[in-house]
């Protein structure tokens, strides 16, 4: 009847630890992807697949722990949605890695792709900072603003890359499509991270 009194928030702490691990794994995936792009090492980029599987397991554990009684029911849907959004970022990285394994980045786009991959690391690190700020009850406004600024930078790069992309001659339909989807996937990561940071803001507001 009074389990929550005696647990003193142990269930909640388990969810927090797992969510932190989930985001740290995301940062590791982004770093691996970035290094792979710089070194033009497809095997390094493809390691994202292993990390995605590991992240899937963590997501299941987070959702199970939440529905086993961690946190008030009022918060649970938003916490689950946050875990699902982090998982969607993994899906985007995985898709981008898959496309990368099937193509070569044209020289005119290489530098921009590496920059986007670098900003992806930064935006994910910022997401982790936002999450810790939420848990410790610190101000989130400036941190979520930083996420939005990174997202804007990536968006600007995306439009620039697309303008270049349309002028690149391609051998066939599939080569063009895979390249376009790679760019879309690489630049979509920041959109999902921004959505995830919005959920952190919602959780923060709803607990005050």
């Amino acid at each position: 009847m009074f389990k929550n009194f005696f647990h003193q928030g142990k269930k909640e702490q388990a969810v927090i630890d797992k969510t932190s691990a989930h985001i740290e794994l995301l940062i590791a995936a982004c770093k691996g992807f970035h290094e792979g792009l710089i070194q033009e090492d497809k095997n390094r980029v493809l390691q994202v697949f292993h990390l995605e599987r590991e992240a899937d397991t963590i997501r299941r554990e987070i959702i199970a722990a939440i529905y086993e009684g961690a946190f008030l029911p009022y918060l649970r849907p938003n916490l689950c949605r946050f875990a699902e959004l982090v998982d969607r970022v993994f899906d985007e990285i995985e898709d981008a890695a898959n496309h990368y394994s099937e193509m070569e980045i044209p020289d005119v786009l290489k530098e921009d792709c590496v920059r986007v991959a670098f900003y992806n690391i930064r935006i994910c690190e910022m997401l982790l900072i936002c999450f810790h700020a939420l848990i410790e009850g610190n101000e989130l406004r400036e941190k979520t603003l930083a996420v939005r600024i990174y997202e804007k930078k990536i968006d600007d790069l995306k439009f620039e890359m697309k303008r270049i992309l349309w002028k690149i001659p391609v051998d066939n339909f599939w080569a063009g499509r895979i390249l376009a989807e790679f760019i879309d996937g690489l630049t979509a990561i920041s959109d999902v991270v921004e959505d995830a940071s919005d959920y952190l803001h919602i959780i923060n507001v709803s607990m005050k």
Partner: protein
Amino acid sequence: MWKITSGIFLGWSLGANDSANIFGTGVATGTVKYRTAIWLTAVFVLVGALAEGPKCMDTINELSRINPVSAFCCTLAAVITITALTFLAIPASVSQAIVGTIVGAGLLAGRVDFTLLYKVVACWLFTPVMGIVLGYLVYRVSASILNHTVKSITRRNLIYFTGILFAGSYGAYSLGANNVANVTGVYVNAGLLLPLEASAIGGISIGLGVLTYSKKVMMTVGKGIVPLDPFSAFVVVLAEAMTLHIFTQLGVPVSSSQAVVGAVVGVGLVGGLRTISGKMLLNITVGWIMTPVAAGLFAVGLLVASRFLF
């Protein structure tokens, strides 16, 4: 002793209906398990009834002197009125129904203390007002304290959970203390029961209503109330409990539903929210007038009929 059966039925009905005002939001949102909620409510209603129940019985006793048959007719009329108004979806208060029946019976016998009646009616008017004021103040003060002292989300989570349990238990205590007089107070007036016996029987009958038939109303009311966040839910129940407790000290039984509506409006005022509609206000006003008038007329009808039977 058969004359107290209508009072037991009234208590059962009050328990089944009014427990929703205490743990309704907690249960409907899944914060508190239904079993935990009903046991806490039943236990604290009984404790409240035994500890402070007799305070409001004095008011019921002094309003008008009635005999045992009249006491039976009054509680029966109150039950029928409450059931009929609930069926018509008009918010009805047991306190207003029972006072209406006593005044009806008193008018028939030519013995009503109108000075005391004015005090009771004034308290009814002040119930939602006090709910609004306390809802507003408790929200402001507790939010300020929490925002400055507890920042961690894990601790807040634990505080909200504990707060809802504490406020609910206090709400149940206040409900028992304030409303037990409605259920069995007339039997003390009629000389059928001693105040402590009346408190025990009333508390047990309210508790039985909570334990056996409160789930449906609890879920309906809990989901029907403005969707509240855990902190606001805690404040609303605490403000309602405080309102009932204050009126218990004044010795006047009041409506827990009206106290809750007031507290919701008070919490809504903090954020500048519109938490009550004109239609809802009209419904409450109709209930306010209809309940004591209808119950009083019903009691008069039953008493006239009983003269032919007994």
